[in-house]
């Protein structure tokens, strides 16, 4: 018996591990929370290495970008090159300042329980869409928390360890966000796909949706606050039969270029209240206040509030636009 086991140990071992893998797959399929006993350990183990590598990569990338930029100026004289270098450095600083102040401006409209995190890694395969952040449970980041940035919705926390966490992006096929078309208040679910695109499903056939419509969160999924920008409808498809129509949505956020994100550690209701309070404060602007509207794309005209759907608040939410809550 022992001889048989020893001789066939690889076949038997493979059988055991293949079965175990399938069992893990079955246990985790379809769920938003996964059973992953070692995941947090791996995440924590790799976090310092990823932080250092991401930082080094950013530095090298920055040096490389500057080098390529300067190659084209090689033919020009020294004075122009010095001038160019100075301008580039200034521009780089300005752009970075603008980006960070944009983020801070957005953060100032949210309640205090917001964790700012840096992206230190991305998904190990190309089928799925996740990000790794340098903040974890010690900073108050927990699974199922919403992750946003100044441009809009990014995703939700899928897993966290003491010092790191993983974000399931909006474009991942396991993602689902309850959403509204801002103009007509048509409701649906924005889901990712394996191809990396997004679509808004389960929109009632009779609801009006068209290309260019802005899609925002409805706040009904218990994860995202109401009114956060998701993206714009690029096309609408309606089959001859069926109760629903489907709209392709282009996310407002370019996930490939994310560097810093905000994790909403408060409950969505608290965030909504804070956003509305901020909007009320904005309704009576002080003379020295920052002109938010100058940075904000004009919101599309909205239909008068209809009878609220079941479970939907009667209170009209203020949609959050790139630089904060839009004026009512």
């Amino acid at each position: 018996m022992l001889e048989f086991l020893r001789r066939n140990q690889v076949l038997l071992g493979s059988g055991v591990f293949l079965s175990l893998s399938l069992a893990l797959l079955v246990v985790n399929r379809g769920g938003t929370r996964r059973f992953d006993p070692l995941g947090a350990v791996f995440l924590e183990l790799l976090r310092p290495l990823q932080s250092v590598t991401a930082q080094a990569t950013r530095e090298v990338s920055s040096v490389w970008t500057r080098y390529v930029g300067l190659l084209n100026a090689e033919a020009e004289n020294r004075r122009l090159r010095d001038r160019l270098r100075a301008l580039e450095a200034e521009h780089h600083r300005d752009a970075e300042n603008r980006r960070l102040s944009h983020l801070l401006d957005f953060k100032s409209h949210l309640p205090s329980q917001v964790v700012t995190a840096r992206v230190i890694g991305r998904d190990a395969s190309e089928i799925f869409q996740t990000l790794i952040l340098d903040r974890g449970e010690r900073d108050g980041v927990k699974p199922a928390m919403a992750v946003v940035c100044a441009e809009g919705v990014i995703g939700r926390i899928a897993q966290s360890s003491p010092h790191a966490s993983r974000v399931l992006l909006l474009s991942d096929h396991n993602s689902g966000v309850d959403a509204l078309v801002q103009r007509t208040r048509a409701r649906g679910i924005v889901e990712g796909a394996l191809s990396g695109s997004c679509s808004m499903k389960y929109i009632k056939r009779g609801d009006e949706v068209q290309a260019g419509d802005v899609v925002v969160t409805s706040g009904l999924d218990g994860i995202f606050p109401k009114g956060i920008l998701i993206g714009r409808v690029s096309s609408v498809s309606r089959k001859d039969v069926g109760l629903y129509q489907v709209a392709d949505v282009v996310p407002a956020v370019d996930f490939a270029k994310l560097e810093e994100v905000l994790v909403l550690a408060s409950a969505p209701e608290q965030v909504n209240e804070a956003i509305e309070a901020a909007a009320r404060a904005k309704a009576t602007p002080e003379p020295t206040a920052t002109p938010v509207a100058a940075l904000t794309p004009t919101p599309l005209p909205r239909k008068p509030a209809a009878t609220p759907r079941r479970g939907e608040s009667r209170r009209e939410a203020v949609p959050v636009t790139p630089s904060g809550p839009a004026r009512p």
Partner: protein
Amino acid sequence: MGLLSLVMITAVLGVLLQTTVLHLLPLASIMPDFVVILCVYLALHEHSVAGTLGAFLLGYFTDSFSGNVLGLHAFAMSLVFLLVYLLARQLWMDNVVANVAVVFVASLLKALAVAFLVAVCLSADYPWNHLFSTVWIEAAIAALFSPVVFSLLDAGRRMWGLD
């Protein structure tokens, strides 16, 4: 077990590269899959339960940094290990060309196994066209990288006295 430790350390470095640096390359959507190369190496050199455990852990480790579904890569890597092991028992594999060919086939097999599981267990709308257009290139890149990775692992084995 010594070889398993070496492969696991290399896997950490491989996944570290895959989750950080390689995303910045021009063809970021087509990355060399270091984990499948390591799995093939393990299947060619570690014919024991430790080898099967190593393959499973390599897949599990990848799953921990990929998507929200656990077990996909763990299954694919265990399958790749088993098939390469069975192949290695029948054929002479101790030369570079054979190794490159095996890594190419193993990479294809792993991609197909993952795609099949995703399509069957998770989603019916798997983008098969996209898969078939990129899987060959991914497999070729993995095969091209394999001699370098194998040489580094051989050097590591000699350095750690595992030969």
